[in-house]
């Protein structure tokens, strides 16, 4: 951080001013002129929070994707199918047992098992043939999509939010002052906050596991040079299987999350595949902090875009990707 400030003082100044402005927009009571210009503060805050929580969901999907790519150089275009599979499993569990927490656990385990099967049966056979692996994942995603359509039909499913998470919570953020002088606070759905906080916890835990533990050290070494790592005696195939299982399991968890605060239907697999593609292209392939930054940017752009420029929200996301590719083709936080 301090090195960045030393190298680019002008950019650092602009960034600080921008952050200060955003903080002011969040915490200050807006003067009437501003409300007239860009609408009410409550709408802005809601879009901002929706964007951040959506970013949390995108991070869950994209971090598994980027982890798998970083270690195995394998673009798993069936990742969206894993997301949807996890969502359907979570729906089935929560509908039959009524337990929201249990649906996470089962979804994680089952999608992780699918991931293990994929790695053992498919990807191990064609190691180092990136393009062929990618083609196979495209074929797999078609097959999975049709199998899930067969099993679950084309209906929309929504996972029941547990009772203790239903309802809004009041945040200490003033949206407006009533004429009586009494402040109005922002009310926001508790479940979204919980989901966002848990995705932050998962992200931090992943970062710690990668940077502070032995298995994380092995994975980081594998990202840098897996041939040398295998030569030092690490059982690299086992590491591959574990990482693939974990990445797939994250997609499964994300499916339950997405099924809770959005809905599950055929086509969501492609939507989330696209979202994680854009997120990792923006953030940098194979980088966990990059996935977090990319997810935050894309989530915010999508939500703020859909509030303030509704027709062109998707184009804003796309423009961000183009801009990043033009300036930094390897992604914002990639090392290379």
């Amino acid at each position, binding site marked *: 951080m301090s090195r960045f400030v030393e190298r680019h003082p002008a950019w650092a100044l602009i960034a600080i001013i921008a952050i200060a402005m955003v903080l002011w927009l969040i915490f200050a009571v807006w003067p009437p002129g501003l409300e007239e210009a860009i609408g009410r503060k409550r709408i802005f805050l809601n879009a901002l929070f929706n964007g951040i929580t959506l970013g949390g969901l995108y991070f869950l999907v994209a971090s598994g994707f980027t982890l798998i790519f970083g270690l195995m*150089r394998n*673009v798993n*275009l069936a990742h969206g199918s894993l997301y949807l599979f996890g969502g359907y499993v979570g729906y089935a569990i929560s509908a039959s047992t009524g337990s929201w927490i249990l649906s996470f656990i089962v979804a994680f385990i089952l999608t992780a098992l699918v991931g293990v099967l994929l790695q053992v049966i498919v990807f191990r056979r*064609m190691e180092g*043939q*990136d*393009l*062929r692996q*990618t*083609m*196979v994942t*495209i*074929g*797999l995603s*078609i*097959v999975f*999509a*049709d*199998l899930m359509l*067969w099993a679950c039909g084309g209906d929309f499913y929504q996972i029941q939010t547990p009772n203790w998470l239903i309802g809004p919570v009041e945040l200490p953020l003033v949206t407006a002052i009533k004429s009586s002088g009494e402040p109005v606070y922002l009310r926001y759905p508790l479940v979204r906050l919980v989901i966002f906080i848990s995705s932050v916890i998962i992200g931090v835990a992943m970062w710690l596991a990668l940077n502070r533990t032995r298995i994380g050290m092995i994975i980081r070494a594998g990202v840098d040079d897996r041939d040398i790592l295998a030569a030092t005696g690490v059982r690299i195939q086992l590491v591959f299987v574990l990482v693939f299982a974990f990445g797939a399991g994250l997609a499964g968890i994300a499916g339950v999350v997405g099924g809770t605060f959005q809905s599950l239907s055929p086509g969501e697999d*492609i939507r989330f595949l*696209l979202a994680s*593609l*854009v997120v990792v*292209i923006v953030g940098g*392939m194979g980088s966990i902090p990059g996935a977090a930054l990319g997810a935050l940017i894309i989530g915010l752009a999508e939500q703020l875009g859909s509030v303030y420029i509704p*027709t*062109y*929200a*998707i*184009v804003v*996301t*796309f423009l961000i*990707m*183009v801009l990043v*590719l*033009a300036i930094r*083709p390897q992604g914002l936080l990639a090392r290379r």
Partner: protein
Amino acid sequence: MSLAHDARVAVRPATMAQRAARTWPEVNNPAAWIVAVILLIMPLIASGFFLIEIFATTLILGTMALSLMFLAGYGGMVSLMQLTIAGFSAYMVAVFGVSGNANISLGWPWWLAVPMALALAIAFGTLGGALAVRTEGIYTIMITLAIGAAFYYFTNQNWAIFNGHTGINTVATPHFWGVNWRADIPFYYLVLAVAALCYFAVEYLSRAPFGLALQGVRDNPRRMAALGFNVNAHRIAAYAFASFVAALAGVLQVWNYRQISPGSVSVGACIDVLIIAVVGGITRPIGPFIGALIFVLLRTFALDFLVRLGLDGNRFRLLIGLGFLAIVFWSSDGVIGLWQRWRQSQRSNAPSSSGGRHHG
């Protein structure tokens, strides 16, 4: 890179032979003459349904996949946005030409609208290509897929130009020289002429200096750069040419269905084009057409076929996906690769053969 790598193995001897003979490979191939004659007298054999729904559709899809084959086989760049370029040109024909949506369409005559659509689609494809060549290999797939998906969502949301999810309907088709070019037989010959033009253009380019340089760039970009070739310029030029081929197919497609909607440019449809090219084989221009024929036959008859077997007819995509998986798993070069391997095993059964090249 396995597909491109294997492609190199298969293409190089063929190119050498062609250069030695200095002639079109089709001239000495009786099978090619037979296919050409069959295609020309097709209206005598096939009725309206088969002529348009099977053969014309095959040729249109094959032309789209041909543009992908050119990029992937000779340039080593797997672009998933070829259908998007075709769809863009189709939309532009509908927007500039005459259609049922008078508030959107500008009502230009077809001989103005089509060149405009082609030019815009080429510009679009070249820009997308310029973006995609900043990255390599599997990244290209992801970026072109993202471009295709963004275009799909954009057409869904934009009502001013693309008329949202209803799309543009009853697009006018050309009438000139006293012929209605959308009538079955003239349209078939129009499609056949365009497909043949694109086919021979790709084949010519693959042996022209530009095509050879492009194959050099595919095999070893660093070496080509060291030899003084501008690697990125060659790649972008390849995208421009492929966009032209795809845009022509798009014009034919909008005339075929007389309408265009976001469903025609969806992500699934983009992937279908890749499936067609890969199933047919991406080392030779004929591959995409074979793949398109298989795809169209499956799409049209799989339902009846599955029902007759006592299975659910709606599982047609499952069949396509499994077939695609099988092809990718067992053959690196689609149906053409399987056929070549079979021929080689026949040849190596004969005595004193020196053993075929190993395909893998």
